[in-house]
């Protein structure tokens, strides 16, 4: 497979939308990889084996994986420090509003998952959809009232009544 000719450069107005490269991010990634793989090797050694045979036992494969990841993590750290950071030009830049939107969405989803078993699907789902629709930019009574009711009713009918999933 041969390399393609480079495409046209992004228009100036679109350049602000492209995520910038970051050495600090690369170093953090490498540190997480090293710590994670070291933990994997350590945890693999703690596996209790019913018949100790030594050699290629249930600890062996996770240990091999952890050791390999550790080696790659160290190289990644070296690359992060010694070389220019990776280009992230295929990613759009995140916005402050985006971070808020994401954090609140995850929090709402977590609250929803806690509430669902207690209140039942219908009671938990309807308010969650109203809040999420508003959070994602929906405005007006049709959007904030009709859409959540229709979605809740549709999913309940599809999964609970048609597919017989006990919601």
């Amino acid at each position, binding site marked *: *497979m041969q390399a*393609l*000719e480079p495409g046209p450069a992004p228009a100036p107005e679109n350049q602000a*939308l492209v*995520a910038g490269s970051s050495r600090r*991010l690369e170093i953090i*990634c490498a540190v997480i990889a090293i710590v994670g*793989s070291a933990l994997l090797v350590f945890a*693999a050694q703690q*596996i*209790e*084996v*019913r*018949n100790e045979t030594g050699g*290629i036992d*249930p600890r*062996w*494969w*996770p240990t091999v*994986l*952890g050791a390999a*990841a550790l080696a*790659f*993590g160290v*190289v*990644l750290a070296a*690359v992060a420090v010694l*070389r220019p950071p*990776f*280009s*992230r030009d*295929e*990613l759009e*830049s*995140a*916005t402050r509003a*985006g971070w808020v939107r*994401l954090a609140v*969405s*995850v929090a709402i989803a*977590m609250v929803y*998952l806690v509430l*669902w*078993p207690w209140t039942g699907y219908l009671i938990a*789902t309807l308010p969650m*959809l109203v809040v*999420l*629709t508003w959070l*994602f*930019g*929906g405005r007006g009574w049709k*959007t904030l009232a009709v*859409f*959540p009711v229709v*979605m809740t009713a549709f*999913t309940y009918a599809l999964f609970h009544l048609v597919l*017989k*999933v*006990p*919601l």
Partner: protein
Amino acid sequence: MSAFAEGLNALLDPTVAVCLLVGLLIGTLVGMFPGVTGSMAVALAAGFTLTLEPVQGLAVLLTIYVGANYGDRIPAILVNTPGTPAAIATTLDGYPLAKQGKGGLALVSSAMVTTGGILLSVVVFIFAARPVASIALEFGPAEMFALVVFGLTVMISISSRSLLKGLLAGIAGLAIATIGRDPITGDERFVFGLNDLNSGLPFIAVIIGLFGIAELFDQLLTHHPGTAQIVSSLGRWWPTRAEYKQMARPFALSSVLGTVVGAVPAAGGDIAGLIGWDRAKRMSKHPEKFGKGSLEGLTAADTASSATLGGSLTTTMALGVPGDSVMAVMLGSMLIWGLQPGPSMFVQSPELVASIAGIMIIATVLSLGISLVRSQGMVKILDLPRHYIWVGILLFCIVGTYTTSNNMYTVWVMLLSGVVGVIMKRTGFPPGPVVLGLLLGPLAESNLRRALLIDGPASLVTQPIAASLLLLAAFSLAMPLIRRARAARRDGAPPQPIEVDRT
């Protein structure tokens, strides 16, 4: 009744027809909405198809796969935004054609060559899958391990700009697959006293999280309103005789190329489309028109990316190694239905293979029909506000995941995988190798351990097939680095990070 007839007979069930229509509708719609990819839609649909019979479930999933391949061309041509990654190359000439007032021509031509590409590649699947599977039946533990390594390394080399990050992602997937019971001795590993972890992490939940939720979260993070303009004047729809002639050569070239690329484990329509476009440009009498609204360019890109479907299906069904990311998700569903794609499927369930081929052909013909009767009204659907799409995706991901086990633990795993997935996406770690590692991890581990225990390490290098596959695996990892080093030497460029050329 022969297995072939039995397989086709199963498609006459009216419920299968309903499943085909549902899949077609979902596939076309998800393809049309930028950001909702085929893998995401199939992952999402996998949740609620698990309660169906395998043929019905496959009818939904495969039709989504096919339908998305048509739908994704619409925003690529009209909005300059590919509906799925497979339509990236469509934008190169599709959007310029639409700007010239030839949007209708581009849409119809695209639908026709997409149909041709898929049908030709399904013919390859029908004739090539069984011979490939019969060779694979002879595989022992060493060969099976080498095959998994080959699939994983190809996925790593093409899905990530950083080879190191791809390798780490693949290892992470293999490591996650060790949670639960040891595949040979049954000993508990990384269970920490939690019963839910005894059978490992629920891979459908992980897949929905990494592909569906992570993509949604990334859109929530990066949404910038009003960056693309929809072309609303579509002009004439049908090509002239001279234009058909123009399209013939790139179609022939790209259908072969796409099928071959599709057969390479993990290589999908995005790569094939770009390669097809590039090759056609080099062979064209008018390369200067490419990128400025060339019908040849559009034909080459769409034929190549759609022809990957049959090649990808062949690899998945014959070898049990996913041909692309959608197939990786579908493999997960098939495992839950108790089906093990791979050579044994051709012996145990030959009728299912015939059903799969039949579903692909029917889905393709139906998708063409929908594409040809499309009207300007479709353009308006692209204006649907984002908040409806985001809320719908989140709710369907949650409920769809819940239906796989009726257990809230699975949904928590999905949500956590989504958070991990968006972090991976933002930091350049590809999700594909994680999913592939998770799915194929037990196969890799058990076969490697058996090979080492029975024949010793030498079996990996003395068995010709295993040695060849491992050599190919090493080659697939080394090639991008060698190519990059050559390019840097040629250009006299300053040192760059270890990034690979994704083409």
